């Protein structure tokens, strides 16, 4: 490498350095290697970033699944409580507690009404539907107030 020993002004020195810069950056085959390394680093960074994102989402999924499991457990527990509350023996006992009494056949009155005057209750079978069109069970009376039959 030739070295010139010339007295140059600072501006000229800077210009000379600028002109010589490409020479220093000319790396020939090393440049390709360097670019490859930089690319590799970039790709690694991207991969690492993606892995991080996936891992974060993975943990979020695990957390959500845990939450889902807890909610399903709560749901099944509530279903269980609901089902237990439908127990007719329990309902009967509660009704008795409230002072209600079961009806007997003497207390039931039937009113025959035209089918189109009152809303029909939801009934499953066809025969039930036919029956319901003919008769609506009327309200019941308490003991001692038996209706005519």
């Amino acid at each position: 490498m030739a070295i010139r020993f010339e007295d140059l002004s600072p501006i000229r020195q800077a210009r000379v350095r600028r002109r010589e810069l490409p020479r220093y950056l000319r790396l020939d085959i090393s440049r390709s290697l360097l670019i490859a390394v930089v690319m590799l680093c970039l790709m690694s960074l991207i991969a690492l970033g993606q892995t991080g994102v996936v891992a974060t989402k993975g943990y979020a999924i695990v957390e959500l699944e845990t939450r889902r499991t807890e909610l399903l457990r709560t749901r099944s527990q509530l279903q269980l409580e609901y089902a237990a509350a439908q127990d007719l023996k329990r309902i009967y006992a509660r009704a008795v507690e409230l002072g209600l009494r079961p009806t007997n056949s003497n207390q039931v009155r039937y009113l025959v009404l035209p089918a189109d005057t009152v809303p029909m209750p939801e009934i499953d079978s066809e025969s039930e539907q036919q029956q319901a069109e003919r008769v609506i069970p009327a309200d019941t009376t308490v003991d001692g107030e038996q209706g005519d039959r």
Partner: protein
Amino acid sequence: MASHLVTHTHNRTDSAPAHTYVHIPRWRIQVLLVFSVLLFLRVAFRLGELQILHSEELATKAAREINHEITLRPGRGVITDRHGNALAIDVERESLWVVPAYIPPEKAPRLALTLAPLLGQDEQKILEAMTNTERYWINVARWLEPAVAERIALLGEPGLRLIYEPRRIYPQGSFASQIIGAVNFNNDGIGGVESFYNTALRGITGTLTAEFDPFRNPIAIAPQQRQPPRDGVNLTLTVDPFIQNMIEAELKNAVEQHHADGGSIVVMETATGAVRGMASWPPFDPNRYYDYPPEVYSRNPAISDLYEPGSTFKIITVAAALQTGAATADTPIYDPGVVQRLGIQFHNWDRAGNGTIDPTGVLYYSSNVGALQLNEMTGAERFYQIVRDFGFGEPTGIELGGEERGLVHDPSSPFYNDALLLTNSYGQGIAATPLQMVRAAAAIANNGLLMKPYIVEKICEVDTCTHTRPTPVRQVVDPGVAWTIRRMLVHAANHYAPVVWVHHTGSWADQWLVPGYQVAAKTGTSSIPIPGGGYDPNFTIGSVLGFAPAEESRYAVLVKIDRPKDDIWGVGTAIPVFYNVMDELMRYARIPPDPALFSPGQ
């Protein structure tokens, strides 16, 4: 180090920068190079050793460490009644495991003392588990109540582990227990629909193959193979909660009142064959099925217990005679009370004669002698053909495990003899299940059309539901014959009504059994065969088989009371129960009473 360097300094003007050249001996670079090459070779060799020589072994070890296949358990299907109330449901409950290695020996007795009342277990047993160092962990209690599990968790003991496990729970206890059945500790059904639909209810197990972190969570960035589980189907039964509850209560009262050994009540919708209620005594709580004998929790007496139907079978005898043309409704039959056939004496229940009667009288007086004469007119071949047509001697095909087919010894059977034709006419020497009996009565109510009984109304898998359609089996008797028998049975029912109504009406005359309705019914008192031959001289089975209303019938009902201790006659034990059931059913079905069908005093 500086001393080894040769420095060349170019003397220049003071302002010029000094340039220094460092000379490194070549041998040092070569040593460094050789060292680097050796290092590289070592690394390469080690890599080769790990990646090539021990590759398989290490890969296996690594896989074993982090790769796992776990089983994804499907949820067992929910069973509901026809109104959607859950009768069987899977709920996750915590089970308690102890890890002895994490429990200091000096702390164990105190911990066992704390847990004993919470778990309802013996303190010593818990202590033994806590000090058993031969095993890593030991199960102490399964399926704890949430409140108990919470209290144990609050103890904060590292040696106590609470792990969720699915448990089959029957929220309504013993309600419809024989229909539903139970599930054992292996999640297999052991009775009822739980057993019959076990495979469908269990669902299909899934798997997850993945890498797992130390907390047993799958690592998301690693490849996973997931075969999702398929939950079991949900079953909707035909059982009506009101009817089931009502017949269970009636059966309980009757068994307690008569100190009976057991009994069954079956309610079937006559037009469809849907079973709306099926109760048997004794019941059991499927949540604690293991507290009961196997014959209680694994059998449904309404389909598994065979009994000789007794006089209720006379309905079939009369139907056979009318259908085959061997007799008409007006055919006279002389009933002296006792007759001699094949060298054997056959007699009525009271040995009293009824004079000349017709088939209506056979049912009305429950005449054994009249019934056997009808069978003589019909003949064995035609009689047993009708018996088979009514479905006796074969399972009904209901979707419940453990159904019996019954015993019918027709002429093709090696056990047949001529006396059987005569005894079969009044329901002896032939065995049927309660369900077979009620189905036969339903066929009479349904204008002679025999329906296949069913207990599952709907099967749902995810969003797809399959509804059970009523299935006609065959036309057993002509509609006209069925109508005639219905009229006869209404008379017979009214004949028994005073047992229920005499305290109100003060009369033993015929009266309406359920005021306002025409009810068709026949009572029966069945003798009980004993091992070694003959019949139990002390006890009987009282039963009533019938349906209502007689025309446009809705429900067929069988009431059967086993071995009542206070009354051996079916009329006394079963008729009041039958009346109560029918009375409730008519109101529940919103069938208006006919004001003309009331007897004085009712």
